[in-house]
């Protein structure tokens, strides 16, 4: 079974912990964490991540801004946006930024996260 590398970007240490623990439960993931978009971009310059799980609402660089930057660095970069309280017009802005999927933090489970990440990787490979 191949290992999928995931970079989680969230300014909340608690949410970083929850997302990492959920991926641990899924199994088959190698997880790295970054507390903000700038730090994550530096990490991506050194090593690839199959998927970025990025929080939408972060101070400084938002999840959408991070996605645009990450995809300008590496156009095939797959980004999944996670959000606690999505604004009404997020879907359009996310699509324009190149976000693959939006996931609500309220509905996260190991199964949902695993299925979403695998679907995103599958879509990229097609």
């Amino acid at each position, binding site marked *: 079974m191949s290992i999928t590398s995931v970079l989680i970007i969230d300014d*909340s240490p608690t949410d970083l912990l*929850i997302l990492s*623990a*959920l991926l641990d*439960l899924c199994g088959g993931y190698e997880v790295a964490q970054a507390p903000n978009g700038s730090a994550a971009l530096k990490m991506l310059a050194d090593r690839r991540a199959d998927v970025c799980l990025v929080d939408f609402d972060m101070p400084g660089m938002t999840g959408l801004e991070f996605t645009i930057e990450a995809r300008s660095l590496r156009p095939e970069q797959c980004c999944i946006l996670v959000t*606690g309280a999505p604004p009404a017009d997020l879907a359009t802005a996310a699509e324009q930024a190149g976000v693959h999927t939006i996931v609500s*933090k*309220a509905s*996260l*489970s190991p199964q949902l996260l695993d299925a979403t990440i695998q679907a995103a990787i599958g879509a990229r490979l097609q």
Partner: protein
Amino acid sequence: MTAIDLKAYRQLFDEMPVAALLLDDQGNCLKANEAASDLLGESLADPTWNVFEADHVRGDELAYLVESLRKSGSVDSHDAMLYGPDGGRLVRISGHRIFNDSLGKHVTWMVLGDVTDRSAAAYQLAQVNRQLEESNRQLDQFASMAAHDLKAPARRVRMFAQLLSNDANLGELARGFVVRILASGAQMEDIIDSLLQFAGVSEEAGDTHLTAMKDVLQQACASCAKEVKEAGYEVHLEGTFPIVTMNRAAVEQLIVNLVHNAVKFRRPDVPGQLTITSRDDERSGNHVLTFSDNGVGFPNQDSGHLFEMLYRAHSKAEFEGNGIGLAICQRICKGHGWRIQAASPNEFGATFQITIPKEPTTSRTA
């Protein structure tokens, strides 16, 4: 005019509580009653009193009016500040300039009503209303912010409990506690979501357009379709529905809440059914939308309280819920100038009736 009439008019003039003056074009006071003397703070019986020569702060408004009346002939409800010995008084003045045959010259009648107290009361009322509006706005903002900030911690509690439930080493007792944490966390999130929704519903309808009620009903029912189907429930629309001015998103929310309410309070042993009908009230011409279900209903003495925030007609053990959904319904109706009422006259079933005032532009659609 008879002598008796004249005497009666003089008595009326002298004793009436409203200040009255008779002035000539030069501003000389020809006649004044007692109320006028009281208001202006000096005896106007003195034939030498002249508005143009009077103490500046008391007379200048009257002098201005005499000048105006010379040009226009009459003045109605002119508000002016007059400063007497007791400070400023707000006075509402009406006047009329006429030619007096017996005097052989033009004279001006002026009636001065002291509206200071009335005005101060109106000002205070407006001030209190402004404070109340501000206070309500701040309360809404607080509810919205508090709910928003509570949302993340509540979600995290539930998520950690969910992670903990995956621990194979957890004992039976601890697992039972985790299940309770999960349920309580979900309930807390549900309350927070409802509070956010309540705070998000404005007390005014906001962006309104003429909209076909049937379209909104169908859209709302479609968004509840999964819940309705899973509960083995049926929703019927009957009759013709009006086209009315509304905030579509808010009214859709209103209908979703009523459908959700009907499904929640269904009887377990009876196939649930909600019928939504529309009719015109012949007497008032208003549109009346009725939501009738065959659920458990509610005690009739609760009908006046059902729309209160956090009010529950049934215990939490009987039905889940937080008592916010119907409060949201009422807020949406109030914002539109509509009225919502509830009744449960029979042993089973509840009826929610929305009265929509007739608009000149409304019509009906199939």
